[in-house]
């Protein structure tokens, strides 16, 4: 035993040693010093030493302003600095991770949650090192505890699969820096006031809000294998949301987000105003539309609706998460459900043969539309690259981090926050169908069935951008690959009659749609539309308690998706009771 420990020590010494570089800032120096000390000497009695340590320091500066009906709701600026520590004990094949362990619990004297602590805002090496020291100590103790619990949980079980807990990779040094986004607070306040005041001309909207936020995230990463990165992600986001109720009480809500790396990349104020007016106009029309009764038959998703549908149902299944070991048998089933339904489908057909899917973090533009999901390096320090996920309908691989999954043992450079995430996702179709052709195809299907109409969906809402908090909470609880309870996000749906005429219907809800349904897509357009939106909690395991997620939730994923025609889907109106519309009239419009 003693012999083995000695060997490990030498090996580790060899691995961790990264010569310091001139020009390091105090933060990097502090990380490097504590990394060296911990890799050499951090050991509790005869227990294992860490075999891997990673540090990430995130400097987040931002400001935001929000307004409703022409008045500011709030306006604030903030600056914070966090350290995330990852300590692994054991070895690459079997370590303390992939074990269900809540983010809290004893972590020495460090006040950590999800591996995070606050660092001083000032670049003082001594005080940085104090916090890094305490956080590493806490993370190491927790890692030891998790490893022993994990061994205990498995000692009387036979594992049918031996997948390593951590994959090897070549350490890289990446710099991905772009200029910070600047936002003048007074200008931001003025803009949200003006844009939110547009709702003063929309009597049918009951509640609305416009907000503008800038966030500059500056991350510095270092791991004991020698990988490091410096990455800045500037982001400006403008969001608008509105809600109302149909006369029968059914809720109608919409919201959108526009992004830019700088203010000049955001659409002009007049264009944003036009979108807000259109949003209000749609809600107004929807109030007067009839709800859709039960419908079974062909459904065409056009443009943004196709992208949002793909994002909500198919993308979560493309994320490969390892099976988590748990000490509690009652959680086993949940754990099994949280793995991707596509995990064992590599090599099999998951989409029609005319569709292909790729994730391309390096792309920044499509046509004249900016893409916002890309970055040069992922949160494991792995340089990113294009990943061809589905080729001609056949699943090739999934997006994975350095935590391998069955059949996929190498990282695809897709770690966002604590788990895998998409960046810029491209769905492309072979063939020559235009949007108009696709509508003709829909009508053809309707006629084949001798049905009186088909359904065309033009807009789906993103659960993070529309509706109230409770709707978002419900969507957070959804398990990847399974149908979320009450997926209620179709906004603009139309009955399409054989003569091509369209009639708006409201409150159509998708029922029974799963990843498998996408195999039944019968046609797609050759043109693609671009849509950037927050990926939402849906893409994150229900059992992930990592606070570091916050950034990956807010950060948009861009999708480039053609319009999609499904041969057979079920739509119905929502069930349950709805509160009646307000008794009094809106005070502003009563005057």
């Amino acid at each position, binding site marked *: 035993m003693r012999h083995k420990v000695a060997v490990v020590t030498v090996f580790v010494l060899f691995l961790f040693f990264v010569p310091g570089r001139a020009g390091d800032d105090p933060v990097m120096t502090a990380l490097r*010093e*504590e990394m060296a*000390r*911990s890799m050499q*000497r*951090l*050991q*509790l009695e005869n227990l294992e030493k860490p075999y891997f340590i990673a540090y990430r320091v995130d400097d987040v500066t931002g400001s935001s302003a929000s*307004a*409703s*009906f*022409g*008045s*500011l*709701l*709030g*306006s*604030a*600026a*903030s*600056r*914070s600095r966090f350290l995330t520590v990852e300590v692994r004990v054991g070895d690459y094949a079997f370590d303390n991770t992939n074990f269900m362990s809540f983010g809290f619990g*004893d*972590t*020495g*004297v*460090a*006040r950590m949650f999800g591996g995070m602590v*606050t*660092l*001083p*805002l*000032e670049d*003082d090496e*001594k*005080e940085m*090192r*104090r*916090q*890094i*020291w*305490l956080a590493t*100590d806490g993370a*190491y*103790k927790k890692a030891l505890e998790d490893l022993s619990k994990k061994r205990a949980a498995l000692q009387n079980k036979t594992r049918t699969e031996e997948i390593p807990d951590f994959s090897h990779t070549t350490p890289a040094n990446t710099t991905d820096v772009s200029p910070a986004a600047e936002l003048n607070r007074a200008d931001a306040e003025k803009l949200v006031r003006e844009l939110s005041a547009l709702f*003063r001309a929309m009597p049918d909207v*009951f*509640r609305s809000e416009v907000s503008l936020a800038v966030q500059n995230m500056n991350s510095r990463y270092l791991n004991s294998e020698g990988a490091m990165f410096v990455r800045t992600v500037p982001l400006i986001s403008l969001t608008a949301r509105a809600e109302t109720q149909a006369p029968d009480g059914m809720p109608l809500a919409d919201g959108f987000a526009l992004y830019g790396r700088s203010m000049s990349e955001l659409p002009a104020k007049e264009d944003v105003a036009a979108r807000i007016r259109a949003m209000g106009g749609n809600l107004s029309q929807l109030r007067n539309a009839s709800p859709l009764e039960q419908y079974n038959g062909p459904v065409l998703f056009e443009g943004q609706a196709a992208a949002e549908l793909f994002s909500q149902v198919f993308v979560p299944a493309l994320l490969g998460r390892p099976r988590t070991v748990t000490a509690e048998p009652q959680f086993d089933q949940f754990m099994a459900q949280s793995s991707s339904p596509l995990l064992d489908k590599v090599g099999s057909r998951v989409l029609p043969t005319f569709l292909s899917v790729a994730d391309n973090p390096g792309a920044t533009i499509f046509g004249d539309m900016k893409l916002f999901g890309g970055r040069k390096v992922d949160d494991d320090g792995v340089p990113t690259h294009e990943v061809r996920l589905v080729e001609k309908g056949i699943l090739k691989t999934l997006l994975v981090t350095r935590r391998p999954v069955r059949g996929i043992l190498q990282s695809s450079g897709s770690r966002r926050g604590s788990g895998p995430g998409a960046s810029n996702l491209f769905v492309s179709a072979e063939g020559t169908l235009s949007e108009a052709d696709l509508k003709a195809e829909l009508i053809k299907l309707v006629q084949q069935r001798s049905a009186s109409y088909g359904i065309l969906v033009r807009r789906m809402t993103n659960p993070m951008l529309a509706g109230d*908090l409770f709707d978002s909470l419900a969507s957070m609880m959804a398990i990847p690959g399974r149908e979320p309870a009450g997926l209620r996000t179709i906004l603009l749906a139309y009955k399409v009659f054989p003569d091509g005429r369209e009639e708006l219907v409201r409150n159509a809800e998708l029922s029974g749609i799963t990843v498998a349904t996408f195999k039944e897509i019968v046609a797609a357009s050759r043109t693609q539309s671009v849509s950037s939106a927050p990926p939402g909690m849906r893409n994150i395991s229900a059992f992930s308690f990592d606070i570091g997620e916050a950034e990956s939730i807010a950060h948009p994923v861009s999708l480039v998706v053609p319009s999609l025609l499904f041969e057979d889907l079920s739509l119905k109106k929502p069930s349950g009771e709805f*509160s*009646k519309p*307000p*008794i*009094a009239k*809106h*005070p*502003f419009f*009563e005057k």
Partner: protein
Amino acid sequence: MKHLCRIAIMLLTVIVAAPALGEPQGAKPAPVLEAMKAELARSMETFKSQPVPPYFLSYEITETYSGTVSSSFGKLTGSNENRSRLLNVDLRVGDYALDNTRQIRGAFPSFDFGDRFTFAQIPIEDDADSIRSILWYHTDKKYKRAAEQLTRIQTNIKVKVAQEDKSNDFSRETPEKFSEDRVEVKFDRRGWEDKVRKYTAPFASYGDIYEASATYYVTGETRWFVSSEGAGIQTSQAVYRLFVSAFTKAADGMELPRYVTFAAFSPEGLPDDAAVLRDVDKMIADLKALREAPVVEPYTGPAILTGRASGVFFHEVFGHRIEGHRQKDEDEGQTFKKKIGEKLLPETFSVYFDPTMKRIGPTDLVGAYRFDNQGVKARRVPVIEKGVFKNFLLSRAPIEGFAVSNGHGRGQAGLPPVARQSNLIVENTQPVSPAELRKMLIEQIKKENKPFGLIFEDIEGGFTMTGRFLPNAFNVIPILVYRLYPDGRQELVRGVDLIGTPLTAFSKIVAADTQVGAFNGICGAESGGVPVAAVSPGVLISQIEVQKKDKSKERPPILPAPFADKK
């Protein structure tokens, strides 16, 4: 219901008080108030035609300006400013006797998520149209919920046995009209960034102090209240606080904290740098002494609680149990419900709550206010007179024998108020000198043949359970405890919490000294965090009980501090 109450310590050192709540001034009512009145009138008018019209509606909007700077070991960790406005709507259907707020009995205890966990944000600009649009939206939601609640309550009354307490659901009160100017909040952000850095810098040379932080909070709260009964109130108040916190760890893993807090109604009311730094030095010395202090085993015997410690003791043991709404809730322990007129303490003791008292000696009392969150005028409420129990703390929820509010309906901004404490004042007519009290403790030790007695010098806070299901007990968490031996020798110890049950603990209070101490803190319960104060002389208790403190099993850090690492 467990009331976790973190009352932090207020040292009575060199606090220079300055006038805080100015005298009422004839200020012009804010546009916010006008908007509230207009929307309130319109709502009452519209809902009149409903089958179940509201009989009462009130709006309270609280504007909170907050400035915060914080440091850790001499370096800045945060610096923020924020302004927000939150709305609380009280809409009642039914009548004063029976309305939608009546407890549904026998049901699974439920938090009203709609009320307790949603904050309604109001624009921070004085634009009547946008403010009214949000008032309208939330009034409608609230009305629908109230009507549903009343239906459920009416059914519940039919199927359950008669309620023990037959009092009304809502009291009739004089609608108050008052307006004072908005307080000018002074936030010298850069200056305070330097100060908080300075206050935690002395900790930086210690590798065995694991957290050392200082936070300066400035809060300016302006409240507007209107009701369908005709109330119209605008009040405004600023509080300035400084909180210094540090902890170390004993070799056995026990975490040992020290806190110092200052609060005042003006920045000038806070101590100067030299005074704070003296306290910081004392904290460092105490932490070192605590690390080496012996652990006390569970013990029962006589003890002295110094003024500050005794203030928290009264707050937990007594204060929470005389909050009015707990006397009506049939899941509550109702310890003191039938004790009106009974002698609870020696004749020399009186206890009152006084939100109109802005300071005692040099210390500002943060539990002061002009009107409670239901628009009822603040007043002094004697609860124990010459040892005899007289009164409860009351919101507008009456209880048997107490039909009106006494101005203690309180809640955090945006949350529905319930009966809560304000400034708790314990007085004694025959105090002895602290030395004399100590002598009395030694006599008691000898009389009972105990090896030692305990002196509770400083207390972090405490919590208490007031329900029926769990034992109706309290736990007061001390920070500095001394063992006093019969020969007068005193020794710092660690590792115990002061525990007990309310009636027994009260019956053992014997005497008080002349050294009055005051706490300012934030107390948390159903209606959120509210500022409170507790003022008391040191008291001698003939018998207390201490239990082992819940202790961390974690070892101190494995590696030495980076700056102390000689390797």
